[in-house]
């Protein structure tokens, strides 16, 4: 059987994808557990049961993400930048620039027609342009991470968040909450601050062609729409799969390439 798997263990979530004949037959997204190994096992087994296949049927599996070194069942590990490039091109076959915002990292990459990554840039050690930033802020606002994105659309007079440093910004947000500023306006300010950070990285690689966004933050409409304004280009959506599992898809595709050669993929 030509069944392949990809497993992406990130700092906030773990994702797994099972693919057969270039199609997704099972997938999973779970919240990361303290130990990456446990996250990988749980995500992988959930995806297997979603696909209705057993572990033995998997011909090859590639692991990626922060916890990739700790996954026991994979045949090989590949960096998530490479996986996201691959996965993005599969999800949107015209994509040339990919923005991926993960829990601890934000990267922008140029990809070729095969989804191979060319020039890329990644954030510095600060958490300010990452999913972690949004998570911390959502917690302060006491809203879900998904709801945070939608707040932008309801905002009437978005605040300007002075600092994009996670620590400083948190203090500012608390101050706004205490002074009675509507939560929508604060949320919108948070999303804009995040988008501004990401825009620097995106512009640094000089985006060309279709731009596609992967990672959980791609689902935050507030961030995406502000980012579009800042870079002056549309960010394409793809309905083929959840952008959060792009890395896992890329890993599964690379598994397939590994066994079948490039043509088969």
């Amino acid at each position, binding site marked *: 059987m030509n069944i392949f798997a990809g497993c992406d263990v990130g700092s906030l979530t773990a994702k797994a994808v099972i693919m057969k004949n270039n199609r997704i037959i099972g997938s999973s997204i779970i919240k990361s557990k303290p130990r990456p190994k446990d996250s990988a096992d749980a995500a992988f087994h959930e995806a297997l049961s979603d696909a209705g296949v057993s572990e033995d049927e998997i011909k090859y599996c590639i692991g990626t993400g922060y916890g990739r070194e700790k996954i026991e069942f994979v045949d090989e590990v590949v960096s998530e930048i490479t996986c996201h490039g691959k996965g993005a091109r599969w999800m949107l076959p015209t994509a040339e620039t990919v923005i991926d915002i993960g829990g601890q990292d934000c990267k922008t990459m140029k990809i070729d027609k095969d989804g191979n990554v060319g020039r890329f840039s990644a954030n510095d050690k600060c958490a300010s342009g990452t999913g972690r930033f949004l998570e911390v802020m959502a917690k302060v606002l006491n809203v879900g991470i998904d709801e945070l994105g939608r707040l932008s659309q309801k905002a009437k007079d978005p605040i300007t968040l002075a600092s994009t440093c996670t620590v400083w910004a948190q203090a500012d947000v608390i101050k706004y909450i205490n002074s009675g500023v509507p939560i929508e306006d604060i949320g919108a300010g948070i999303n804009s601050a995040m988008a501004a950070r990401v825009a620097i990285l995106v512009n640094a690689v000089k985006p060309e062609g279709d731009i596609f966004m992967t990672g959980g933050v791609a689902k935050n409409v507030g961030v995406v729409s502000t980012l579009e304004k800042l*870079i002056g280009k549309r960010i394409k959506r793809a309905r083929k799969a959840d952008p959060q599992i792009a890395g896992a898809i890329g890993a599964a595709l690379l598994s397939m390439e590994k066994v079948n050669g490039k043509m088969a993929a």
Partner: protein
Amino acid sequence: MRPEIKEYNYDWLMGHAVAAAAKVPAGMQKETELTLRYIPNFRGVAESFINAGPPGIQFMGLLAKYYENILAARDQGKMIVGTTFCNTPAILYAMDIVPATFEVLTAIGCLIWKRGMFDYMDYCCEVGMPETSCSSQRGFLGAYLAGLCEKIDFVICDTPGVCDTNANAFAFASAYLDKPFFQLNYPSSIGDDRSQTYHIDDYKAMIRFIEKQCGKKLDYDRLAEILKEIDKQDALTADMEDMLMLVPTPIPPIFNVIIYASRFCFAGHKIYTEILETMVETSKQRVAAGVPGSASGEEKLRAFMCYIDHYTVDMNFYDYLEERGVAHTGSILTRNFRDDNKYVQDLEGSSYGIDTSTPDAMLDSIAQMNARYPMVRSIRGPYDKHGMWLEESLALAKMYNADCILYNGTPGCRNTWGMIKPFARDMEKYGYPTHIMNDDAFDDRVESWDATKERLDEFFHVRGLL
């Protein structure tokens, strides 16, 4: 950078905004009030300067003139040089070159651009400058690198050895756009024979470089005229300094920025002399009438800024000092270290004199003056060595009867952040409550003005100053 911003020529935009603002106070009071309604974005700044009286209004005219020069340079066949605030423009004016001073241009942008200079600062990061580099250059530099400004013919900086981060921004600009570059370089000491000789050798090398770039020789008669004007300006500034020492001082906080910003833009030009004359006149009148400089009408506290001021959005900082009744007794940028100034008498080797008798004397004067420009003079060597930051700050704080010391800078200032903690500790040992402000003078995103203000209030309160 967002695409719509790239649609506007930055110099043109700023130049015209400043020119328009300078015309606002020209009408009747009612007309002025009406016009202000049409400039909501920089109404705050314009009002601050208009409220400062004639010197403030003249200062807006000076900024307009500064931009006018930059915008007209091409048509007038003049070259434009990118340079830094602590390099005297006098030598450039003597050679008919128009200076584009990065930090001044960033500060102007910060004051009047609605969102601050964020878009331009971030553009520098987009092309690869580290986000940790100093915001004082990154604002204007972003616009310049994006091709939104008048073309610069070459770049000169005088900060290597003083502030390498500053020098690095200029070196980057030159390499990025492939423009000729010259660095004046300062040793870590001042006042000794070796350093004095080095200052002159290096300055001469700079003049040779400029002569080569513009294909003409330095006109010493012209230089003499400019230096004589500087002589006058220094004397007027000394008068201002004398009045700053009075308790209460008749000098409002905003006059400080006018003194140094004008010097950075137009040292040696009549337009600066005229502003100083008006300031001296206004201040003398206040002394005679017994009116303190602060708008609140009361001087509750005397603060000495041991480094620079805070420039973001709407002159917030100066207005805050006014409201609280805090006298601003100057910053590192305000002083000029002319040899007959009171505060230099105890600081051996720290001063310069102006002698226009021979070309050599002139070169000597301008080189030694430049070596004593703000920051260049006292931030070069270890802060506790002779002639450096601690000695200077203590002498000034004492002379100006300061009640406390405030440090404000930018996170890009590797130089002062490398020594501010022990420096502040030493100042405290000498009895000066010292507050380290954590914000960025040019970028509100580092710390919001509200947070900065709260911390200042907290400091004044906890230390029992206000």
